[in-house]
């Protein structure tokens, strides 16, 4: 290669949720600068939550993200219940897990089939991919639909569901009302198994990295709403200790705030973190499918996150079926709660990783302040680190191909910039 300065620019990242750009500067075959830029406008959720009633937090914070509203509702609800000192058990707790299964299926399948797979197969998008692989795209759409169907039935509608509330639900269902869904979930479980097999044979660049993975860990279950925060490098804390261990940092090479572990540095949240830290808590079927596909118990190649997502879709279908098999209608849809002056914490596993909420409320139940840390903010530094290491390996590629590969490397994380933005600093400098 001749010695020269090259820049890789993507002014508007496609197939991610929200508005971001990429800028990489290479001089004499050495990467000089990597910036994942965020120009999504800020919306100030933490600010206007102040003064709102504690029962409004789930419906307001859902509007941070149209792709993972259930995650926001679950984190908000569990934080408020934590503040009021209650923990739901039995079928109400199970319906929450069921709802989260729906969101994982819907969000993961969207990413697998429509946002990520086209990169591996060289298509601009899933519609173009469907011209050559119609059956595959249709399988993806129908599988995604089952996820939406769970959220719609339990939550009232797929985007910004209306049924979940602090203390439980507005309405709960009789066992028989789930009969139709159960049948379709059996198809979905088979389709998910096919998805694992299909994604496992996609072409993956060699890119094993040494990461610190952070996820929830529950004593028995693959995590959704509860557990301790753990990592593969010894982190093991209660959710309420989150802010003692994680900070936002201003780094020189970027104008965005990055979330890092105080003791160490960047970390990795999301499906790969959950998988690596909770493999043995997956259902036997999901474990078996993962091993059969050649994934192994540990995965350190972010390009393979598409397989891990597929394993989680399979788990979510399996878990949803387990919940429906043993489901009995709860005696009452919710328990009534009286506010008190308190602080509540929660972390739940959004499709893209841990979503932290903290609220303090007054004796009348008014929110005094709120803190929300979405998964994409936490992964941002890791995404940039990947690009620092990835680009030098592929410098011989033509410009267009290298740019596309960098985009794919970002999409490994299924970044949701809409979520991240109320937290990230706005950078209007155009590249």
């Amino acid at each position: 290669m001749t010695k020269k300065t090259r820049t890789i620019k993507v002014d508007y990242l496609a197939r991610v949720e929200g508005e971001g750009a990429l800028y990489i500067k290479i001089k004499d075959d050495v990467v000089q600068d990597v910036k994942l830029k965020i120009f999504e406008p800020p919306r100030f959720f933490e600010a206007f939550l102040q003064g709102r009633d504690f029962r409004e937090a789930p419906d307001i914070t859902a509007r941070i993200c149209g792709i993972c509203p259930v995650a926001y509702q679950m984190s908000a609800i569990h934080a408020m219940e934590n503040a009021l000192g209650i923990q739901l058990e039995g079928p109400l707790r199970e319906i929450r897990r069921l709802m989260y299964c729906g969101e994982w299926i819907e969000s993961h399948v969207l990413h697998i089939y429509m946002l990520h797979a086209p990169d591996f197969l060289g298509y601009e998008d899933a519609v173009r991919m469907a011209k050559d692989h119609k059956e595959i795209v249709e399988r993806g759409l129908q599988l995604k639909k089952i996820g939406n169907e769970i959220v719609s039935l339990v939550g009232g509608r797929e985007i910004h569901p209306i049924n979940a509330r602090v203390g439980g639900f507005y309405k709960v269902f009789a066992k028989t009302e789930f009969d139709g869904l159960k049948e379709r979930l059996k198809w979905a479980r088979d389709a998910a198994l096919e998805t694992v097999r299909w994604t496992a044979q996609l072409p993956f660049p060699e890119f094993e990295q040494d990461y610190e993975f952070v996820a929830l860990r529950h004593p028995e279950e693959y995590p959704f709403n509860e557990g301790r925060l753990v990592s593969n490098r010894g982190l093991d804390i209660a959710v309420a200790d989150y802010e003692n261990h994680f900070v936002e940092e201003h780094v020189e090479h970027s104008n965005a705030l990055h979330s890092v572990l105080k003791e160490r540095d960047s970390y990795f949240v999301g499906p790969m973190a959950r998988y690596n830290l909770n493999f043995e808590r997956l259902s036997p079927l999901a474990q078996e499918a993962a091993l059969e596909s050649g994934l192994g118990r540990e995965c350190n190649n972010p390009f393979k996150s598409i397989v891990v997502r597929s394993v989680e879709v399979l788990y979510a279908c399996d878990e949803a079926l387990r919940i429906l098999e043993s489901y009995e209608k709860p005696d009452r849809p919710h328990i009534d709660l009286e506010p008190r002056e308190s602080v509540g914490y929660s972390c739940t596993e959004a499709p893209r990783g841990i979503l932290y909420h903290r609220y303090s409320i007054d004796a009348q139940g008014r929110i005094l302040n709120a803190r929300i840390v979405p998964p994409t903010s936490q992964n941002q530094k890791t995404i940039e680190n990947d690009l620092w290491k990835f680009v030098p390996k592929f410098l011989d590629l033509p410009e267009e191909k290298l740019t596309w590969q960098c985009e794919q490397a970002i999409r490994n994380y299924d970044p949701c910039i809409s979520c991240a933005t109320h937290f990230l600093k706005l950078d209007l400098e155009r590249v």
Partner: protein
Amino acid sequence: MAGKKKPKVAVWKFASCDGCQLSLLDCEDELLAVAEAIEIANFPEASRAVVKGPYDLSLVEGSITTPHDEERIHQVRRSSKFLVTIGACATAGGIQALRNFKDVQDFVSIVYATPDYIDTLAKSSAISDHVRVDFELRGCPINKYQLVEVVSAYLKDRKPVTPAHSVCVECKRRGTVCVMVSQGTLCMGPVVHAGCGAICPAYDRGCYGCFGPKETPNTESLSEWFKDHGMGNEELVRAYRSFNAYATPFRKESERHD
């Protein structure tokens, strides 16, 4: 349109949660058929391919909150034959319009450690405050079937059928017993625009106004009714100030009790 060039459709995002444009991808049964009938010329959330304008139809999600977006919406308008706003953000400023009732600089410093980096407008405003809009589709989020209806209507040069009556009519149609009358559950249905299919009352919950004000809403009367049932001013203000807080009838009604 058969045999002719496919109509070009573009999707644009401003300040929003991405949920309304996701509705398009949530049309799992219709998506591939729709993609046969139109050319998806600009839809970054779904495709890295971009086809240059002009566009036959632009779907605009999100509200205007930055100086840059204030400029960008004019470019979108110039390159679009029809411009349809999708959702409460684009149509009424969205939940982020709650800043309009406060000093935005206070908001910036609550959320961001270094407020001077933030370049934001004092108000979150609807698309129609900036450019001519051909049609506004309501909802937080929009109803995906209404979206398909609006897209097909514009591509066939007809008016979309999306009734502007209240949620109450949808409850009657659905056969849902009135939650306000039968359970005393406070419900905004009488003043809220139809479109969601009256989901909340069917789930034993009062309507909380995702679709914004219906045409000629009698908010004053509803507020009196709420007060008689024990709602205080603070709660009344909050009820009107959510996802459509800056839609004129809701803004005025909330200001009466503030």
